[in-house]
């Protein structure tokens, strides 16, 4: 069954999803800790901005990223001139787009789990003379680990299934931006249904397994 497809888009998808998830893990933990510490206008605004990709068409986000990061734009030009970094139609650009697009999928479960932590646990650690970073690492995150796992699984799966942002920002460049969802679309356009079926079946089985794992994580947390 796997003989009729190019494995490269699958490997590229795995690489993109793994990198995106790792970056999101590093970003989301301090971000969620800040959001969970209280309510303020700044926090509300940040939460709305982070959640935008949940309701925004991926093509809209991809379009604005394409415009903003294009070498002819202010930011894109500056990145190219100072760091030789070209983010449109490149794998690096895909990583950036995926991180932004999957951010709410990582943030929401983790934030919910952090907010469910009894305040007295954190206060007890504070009275024991611990710094906030130590409390986050030793008390808060272990208590919210099911949210962290759930967020990582969702972010990984969401990146694997991404299409709109990838197409707008990365196009369809073999070995660079042609991920599984793009390869599936390309095979379908070429009327190569057996290959399209294979890509689609792999994505369906993968998504099913991800949701099954998520269910088990949530059941264990409950």
């Amino acid at each position, binding site marked *: 069954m796997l003989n009729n497809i190019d494995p490269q888009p699958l490997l590229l998808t795995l690489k993109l999803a793994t990198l995106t998830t790792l970056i999101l893990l590093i970003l989301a933990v301090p971000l969620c800790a800040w959001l969970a510490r209280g309510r303020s206008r700044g926090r509300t605004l940040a939460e709305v901005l982070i959640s935008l990709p949940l309701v925004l068409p991926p093509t809209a986000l991809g379009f604005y990223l394409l415009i903003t990061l294009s070498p002819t734009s202010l930011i894109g030009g500056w990145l190219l001139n100072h760091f030789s970094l070209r983010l449109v139609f490149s794998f690096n650009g895909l990583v950036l787009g995926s991180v932004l697009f999957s951010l709410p999928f990582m943030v929401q479960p983790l934030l919910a789990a952090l907010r469910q932590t009894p305040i007295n646990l954190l206060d007890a650690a504070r009275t024991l003379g611990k710094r906030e970073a130590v409390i986050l690492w030793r008390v808060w995150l272990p*208590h919210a680990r099911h949210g962290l796992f759930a967020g990582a699984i969702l972010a990984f799966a969401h990146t694997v299934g991404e299409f709109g942002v990838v197409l707008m920002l990365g196009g369809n460049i073999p070995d660079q931006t042609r991920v599984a969802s793009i390869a599936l679309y390309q095979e379908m356009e070429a009327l190569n249904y057996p290959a399209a079926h294979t890509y689609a079946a792999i994505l369906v089985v993968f998504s099913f397994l991800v949701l099954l794992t998520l269910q088990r994580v949530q059941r264990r947390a409950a």
Partner: protein
Amino acid sequence: MSLQIEISLALPGRILDIHTDLPKGGCLALYGPSGVGKTTLLRVLAGLQQPQRGSVLFDGKPWLDTDQRLLVPPRSRRVGFVFQDFALFPNMTVEGNLAFAQPRPDAARRAYWLALTGMTAYAQRSPRELSGGQMQRVALARALASEPQLLLLDEALSALDSRLRADLQDALADILAETHLTTVLVSHDPGEVFRLATQVAHLQPDAPTRYGTPREVLLKTNTLGRYALAGQVLLIEPAGVQARVVIAIGIETLTTLLNHDEAAALKVGQRVSVALNGASAMVSAA
């Protein structure tokens, strides 16, 4: 290390004012009904909450001064706080909770506190595997393991049965006497207040806070003799027994509250001071 408190706390519908001076090694009991602000006051002393106005001085150093906008963070105060819900870290073992609390790792001291609270056999258990009373003992051991300069106990012994509570009250009294640890405790139990406290602040919802020794605050005179109904507990002084109040109490009930030597020394007609739970005692004028 003395503790000076001058605090105004805004509670729903009223302001709670409290001002007291606790000498080094003293034990102040915050006594009163639920919702009167006792736990909030403990949180203010720990630096976890800010009052509307006030100041807290510990050993001459300001911990809080709202006029000066000064607030020393909880981690710089070195307080040992036993929370009402224990607040044990579920991702650590019992011993792990103590190790996390220690300023420097010290296995011998951990073993000492575990032995003192009777938790040595449970050192490698998760807090989830413990009963309420066991969790309370671990919370106390953890607070002591942090080498605090001020101990804050929020109904620290309430989840224990009466025998264990009496044992731990004795142990705690010994620890406080030995370490000269300045302590503030919240309690509904006059027996506990009498056993541990050197001073009492009786917080009341619609009257000014009363201060004094446990005897001064919890006992008052009226026409039936020297007794007072304080919360759920009836306290009776020997003078009351001699005057007009007659107490009938089964000797078996009384002996379960005392150790063997004390029980053996009891004689019929002997004057005793007793604290009875109001829910299980009935008193009438003779």
